[in-house]
């Protein structure tokens, strides 16, 4: 799809050590959500979203009572056209791993992207997400990102 790389030289951070689950209670917490998405591969580079600091534990918030999960991610560069793909990956992964009654909001961190508003709108529009996932090329890209294991 893209010829050149959008961000050829991203800053790669060291993967922090994963301690045994520090959460004691059995209720759903942000770390649960973060654990499911941290290892998604970046569409461009062989690194996980966590390594590229696209996601962090702080960027996830969960309200179990209202059934809401909110994720804010930060694309590596201002003009990252991969933001929508990343968002799509996040949505699909969360849809697979959490009960359907959860409402999932995916947003780009404010100020991190040039066309922030349109991307946000696109990512939270059911029909457009469904349509995107029907596009075979896009679907393949998303699946590749999801089934990586770091």
């Amino acid at each position: 799809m893209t010829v050149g790389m959008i961000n050829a030289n991203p800053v790669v951070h060291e993967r922090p050590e994963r301690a045994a689950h520090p959460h004691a209670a059995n209720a759903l917490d942000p770390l649960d959500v973060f654990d499911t998405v941290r290892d998604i591969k970046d569409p461009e580079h062989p690194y996980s979203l966590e390594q590229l600091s696209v996601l962090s534990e702080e960027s996830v918030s969960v309200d179990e009572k209202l059934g809401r999960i909110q994720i804010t991610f930060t694309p590596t560069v201002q003009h990252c056209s991969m933001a929508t793909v990343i968002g799509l990956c996040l949505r699909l992964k969360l849809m697979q791993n959490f009960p359907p009654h959860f409402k999932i909001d995916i947003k780009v961190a404010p100020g991190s992207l040039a066309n922030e508003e349109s991307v946000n709108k696109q990512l939270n529009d059911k029909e457009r997400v469904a349509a995107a996932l029907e596009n075979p090329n896009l679907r393949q890209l998303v699946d590749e990102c999801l089934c990586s294991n770091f």
Partner: protein
Amino acid sequence: MAKVPLGQWVPHVEAFVDVSRPPAQHSASVDALAALVNKDKLTLFDLVSKMEMYLTTTDHIVRSRGILLLGEILCQISFKQLDVNAISTLSEFFISRLSDWQALRGALVGCLALLRRKQSIGSIIIADVERLLESFLRNVQVQSLAPADRKLCFQILNCILDQYPEAVKTKGDELLYGICEAIDEEKDPECLKLSFHLVEVVMKQFPDPSGLAEQFASEVFEILSKYYPIYFTHGVGDELDATRDDLSSALMHAFCSTPYFEPFAIPLLLDKLSSSLPLAKLDSLKYLDNCIRCYGTERMVRHATAIWFKLKEVMFSLSIDQSLSTSGSSKDVEKNKNQIVSKALTCLRTAITYMGSSDEDRLINLILLDEDIVNNIHSVASEENSVLTSLQNPIQLHALGSVISILAESSTHSCTRVLQAHFTRLVDSLEISAGSKSRHLNTCSGSSTAPINYGTLYLSVQMLSSCREVALVSQENIPAIKSAEESWWPILEKNIDSIIHLLQSLLTIDSQSAWSAVRQEYVSCAVKGLLILATFPEQCSPLSANTYEDVLLMLTSVITSKYENVHLWRLSLKALTSIGSSILEFHASQKEIIYNKVVVDKISSLHEPYGTSMPLNLRLEANFEVGTAGPNYMLRVVKSLEEAVVTNISEVNARIENVDYIVNLLECYCGQVLPWLFTSGDVNELALSFAMRLWNEIRDLAISDRIRSQGLLSSLMMGMKLLVGICTEEQQLLIVQKAYDTISSMLSRSVKSMTQHPLAVDESVPLCSIHDTSLVCMLSSVIVGIRPQTPLPDMKMMINLFAVFLLKGQIPAAHALASIFNKYLQNSEFSHENELDKLLGTILERCFSTISYSSDMKIALSSAGTTDDAYCSERLSGIIVSKNDILSGLSWIGKGLLMRGNEKVKDISLFLLKCLCSDQSLVGFSPHQQEHGTNDSSYVSLATSAADAFHVMMSDSEVCLNKKFHARIKPLYKQRFFSILMPIFLSKIKESTAMTTKLVLYRAFGHIVSNAPVPAVITEAHQILLVMVDSLAKLSMDIKDKDLVYSMLLILSGMLMDEKGKECILENIHIVVGVLTQLVSYPHMMIVRETALQCFVAMSNFPHSKIYRMRAQILQATIRALDDKKRTVRQEAVLCRQTWQSFA
């Protein structure tokens, strides 16, 4: 010898020579030909003469294939006897072929095969080996070959050097040149491993006189040094026959092969020691350690100074590094660092031991007078309030202490030097700070300054420990050391008092809250110091008997009074235990007496339950720990425990609170002390005397009803069982006799009269007093632990007695009966003409009738419509309770019989089955009774107990009838019982219509299935699967059955793993999946939900055509589980969902 016709084997040759055939066919034809030759169906001569064309043709491709074939065949017949002619012809051929570079492969294979043959089955002669080597060196250019051929070359050279050393004697420099040439620039890891080995062997082949090794050392080492340190990143998965560790150790052996490498190797290693790569450091230390051992003192002394400086640099982390290694977390870096320091210390130890022997003083001066060391020690000693600063750098301090102690431990002389140099000053400075501390305490108690210099304390203790090591090594020379003026002994002796005083003060003032953070370090150090002082060998102990006693007293007083300080308490206890075991190690009789007096007796004074304020569990722990130091101590501990139990029992009538204390003591005795003693030697005398004393007490105790309070009776019973179980037959006889006498003198008259004759079926059971019951319970515990060979006095009376109490619903009586029948049935020595069988029959008869009679009576009572309803139901409930008890007692007898494989177990199981299905008979009896609620509920409770009875029969028990209590256990009895009962249950379940009946049947069925061996259940899978699944579905309704549901689910998952079980499940996949989806939301037990999900994951491996229809159902169930309360279930659900979603 039957030869095979040409037509059969020649095609194999052709197949091999034909390059266009696939490799599999090539190897198959080699195998076929080799098999023919091995079986003598084809002679080598025939083979070679037929192959002549292939071996000599000018087409080098065909020729090389031909030679390779011959070589490969030779490899495969390495165990076949060959005559001298054949061998010499073959070697002639292959040696000549070495010059044929186009067909070299076959020649190499053939030569290697020839060289590897064992002497006994005909091997190549030395002259030929020499010629082979010559031809090899002249013709083969190793580095121009492919890796596989190079490997063969190295193997050939290794083989010659290893097995024919005499053949290379004459080849000297030619060989060494050849080898240098061969290994130069080698890069393949497998070849490298071989070539390192080659160097090692060849350098060892040419020792000093020839001078060759010396001559070539620099050249060879130049080649080797390029590989150091080994950089090799391939993992395990790369299918290489070499790892980094292999390569590194091969290279190390090559380095160590000859002392002539010393001028080159040591500088290289020392240079690499300053490398920034942790791996290079580690390797250098390892190599250095080995080289010091191999090169010899003389050569190494030259490098002493350099080595010391480098090691110092590493140990004290003087060089700034580690920042380069970015990979890995800070934890890894830390770990690496520690590893490096400890390796460096080992290396230093080696260096001191090996190099110290020639010029000890020089080495000592080098280290002891080293500026850094001296400065370090000074700065540690002079630091004021140095607690924080020296703790900030514990690694430095640790390294310093280790260096000092390694040096001091190496010999008496160096120990003396070290102590002379520093010890007195350190102790003095400690004393000064201790003095200032007491001033502090006096003036302002809240002062936050830490009074004692930790670093100094640590170093002093470290030196003490070295003194102890030295003393241990030179035990024989102690008098000489003591008398010598220049020795560590007087220095130690002079300072000993102040040290002890100091350590003691640390133990006593530690509750200062202001420096509690660092207190632990101090306390550990102080306890360690005391431990070291107390464990000097007796003849050179610096402590006088009095001081020794003081030290022990100090530690003991910590145990008895400072239990609120857990850290100190545990340390002291550990120290005392090690002191105790060291006494035994040195056979120090004098000390043992003191130890017994001061430590063991004091700690184990347990008579008074509330004598001290120390918590009971700590007292017991201290007792046990001190006892573990040695059997002698444990015996004392046991005695005092025993004494405490007995005295407290005798006082229990006066003081009810003693009961709890006795229960705890007994628990410790049986749970910890007995098993320990049991592993360490004979304990049965002890057990006998304790059991006898207990019986003396029971005589008095039983009169009061205190015995039943707070679990005293049950803990006494458990203790008695274990004690009896340990004793030998003769001892058991004594105990039984005693118990029997006690019982028979104390039982009430009415009970006694009952036991004179077997119970008649219709006789009613008299009421018994509490004290009779307790006595019988105690007697039963003796019987449970008894061995089958021990004769029982008046067995008939005992059986009658127990039978009476069984009918009163006493389970212990049932245990005793079960043990008797399990151990004594058909034992001609004790029972005459099946008398026991008859008794058993009567008892069973009586039990059956009691149970059925009371249900009849109940019917009668309820149908009579008695006026006094309250009275009626009260009596009824009483009957039901005892009926259930009798039923469970019956199941224990059944277990006893089942374990020994007696036929009568059938009667019991049939009766139990009848109880399970009695509903139907009642239904048919009269519709009128159905209206009565009591009727239904009594059936349910009876049937439930009957179902649980199967659990008792099938499961293993801690209480009675196990290996510890000498039960007779027939192999595979569970399996047999399972296969007998299964068909009956299946048909009963099929027949039964009422839901209640079905439920109890399912429960009994579940108990049997889940306790039977899994393989046995799986072989029956096709019959029981449906019933099992159905019972899972039904039992999951009731929370009481949750354990049963789980164990049945485990069986089901076991079936999923088995091939046969899998087939079965596939046939009924709809039903199985249906039930599992229910269990995915099983509310009562998390692990059931988890296991059900795991079952789904396992099912995803089934053939796709069979399971794709289930996909939607399973996915729906897992989606529900995504919302589970527990995290583990949710995670399992995600996994399950992914697996099932992936095959759309």
